[in-house]
């Protein structure tokens, strides 16, 4: 999981698309998954996302993420079917007293929500692992006119996810070596048991943030001079083709509704 949301160096069609096309692509998947609500259609969209991952030649990484996301999707599905009370009852969770009904509609709804989450997460993971940080910055600031400070905050926080993952691992190892165990019967104790991991992480993160700010200031961050970018991207035919394709599918989806 430590490689989630970090750039994977490959040479593929997806990598070479304009970053703007890719960000629109992620948002397009998000829009589609919200518009469509039947499990079968959502399945088709998910297949499309996975297909994009294959074109991006990061299939192994995509499948790994998919595995992790599926677990969350199943949890969400289970929660949904428990709390969805309307429609035809299929069976009861606690049969004798007819408590916690599970309905046909609930199951459908749960599957849809789970699939939706998978589509949204996976499409953003593909976007993040095929787009370099500096290109993401460029698109956010130059094309989408996000103020530079905010764009920087967003991109930096993404950049730090893998760092924190390895930090968590190091802290866990250090505490385990002192006989620390993450066990305990009641949930309240379990929350308390996370303190030895969470506290050092917060302190280390604060120190890291402070150091980052210092390093940035010593390199004249925010001096007000207009920024330039190492790589200038141009919208090419493949970008236009991708956008036309996305638009037509979107129109089709609206029409089919």
């Amino acid at each position, binding site marked *: 999981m430590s490689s989630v949301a970090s750039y994977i160096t490959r040479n593929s069609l997806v990598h070479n698309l304009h970053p703007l096309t890719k960000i629109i692509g992620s948002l397009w998947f998000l829009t589609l998954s919200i518009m469509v609500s039947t499990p079968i259609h959502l399945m088709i969209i998910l297949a499309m996302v996975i297909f994009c991952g294959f074109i991006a030649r990061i299939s192994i990484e995509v499948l790994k993420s998919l595995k992790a996301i599926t677990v969350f999707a199943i949890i969400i599905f289970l929660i949904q079917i428990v709390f969805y009370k309307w429609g035809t009852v299929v069976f009861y969770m606690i049969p004798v007293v007819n408590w916690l009904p599970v309905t046909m509609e609930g199951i459908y709804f749960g599957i849809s929500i789970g699939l939706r989450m998978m589509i949204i997460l996976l499409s953003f993971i593909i976007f993040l692992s095929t787009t370099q940080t500096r290109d993401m910055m460029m698109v956010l600031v130059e094309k989408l006119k996000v103020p530079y400070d905010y764009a920087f905050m967003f991109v930096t926080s993404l950049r730090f996810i893998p760092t924190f993952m390895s*930090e968590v691992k190091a802290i866990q*190892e*250090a505490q385990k*070596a*002192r*006989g*620390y*165990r993450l066990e305990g019967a009641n949930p309240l104790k379990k929350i308390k048991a996370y303190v030895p991991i969470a506290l050092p992480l917060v302190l280390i993160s604060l120190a890291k943030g402070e150091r980052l700010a210092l390093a940035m200031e010593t390199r004249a961050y925010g001096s007000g001079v207009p920024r330039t970018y190492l790589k200038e991207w141009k919208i090419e035919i493949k970008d236009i083709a991708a956008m036309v394709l996305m638009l037509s599918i979107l129109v089709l989806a609206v029409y089919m509704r």
Partner: protein
Amino acid sequence: MLIEVEELDYAYEKSSHVLRNINIKIARGEIIAFTGKNGSGKTTLAKHFNGLLKPSSGKVLIDGKDTAKRTVSELAQTVGYVFQNPDHQIFNDTVFDEVAFGPKNQGITGKKLEELVLNSLAAVGLMEDANLYPYRLSKGQRQRLALASVIAMESDIMVLDEPTTGLDYKEGLEIMELLKKLNLKGHTIIFITHDMGLVADYAKRMIVVSEGEIIADNTPRKVFNLDQVIEKAHLKIPAVTQLARILKLSKKTTLNDTELFQEILAAKEANLNVLCS
């Protein structure tokens, strides 16, 4: 044998081997230095001793028991591990509580706990700071605090990953003297370091790891003489040793300045004009 490593292979991912065919036997009461360049696999090897990593193939036996079948917290009773960065473990409000965390996990309470904690704090010279907030301490003191928290667990084996890195000379020396004391008390000490001066002064045995394999396992005196090993592992033997070698005083490898002086005196007696040669 306290630690036995048999044909250990380890790979983070299936394709790349980090450790290959490692065989070590370590007896009770030894003090050993693990050396090698960055990324050679010495930390990976050390993490096998307390079960943080399990062998991909082969066996690691601690006190005759296979680490693969035991959890890290079980092994923590026998093997203490001090990490490079003390800030990865400090989370309590006071120095005292920080040291008490380990023994508490072992189920020790009351008087015995207090005694243990105070003794370990005294050992590292942090007795007066017992009620301070740990982040008030300097880096060197935090390093010693981390050491105290492992000492308090009274584990037979203590593994230290670069215990003197980032410390000044005096702080480093204090830690090493402390390790020497613990060793004399019967603890088995394994420390990872790049500082050959420390190895010469404190280790009775040194293991050189290069590209996941052990390329030398002997006394520092013998290893310092193996030019190929020194070259391959990017080690820098102490200046005193180099000087003695240039002066061609004797066939014996010199480890510290005392030995150098003795040899100079011996050479003088033999009427050799050493310093002009």
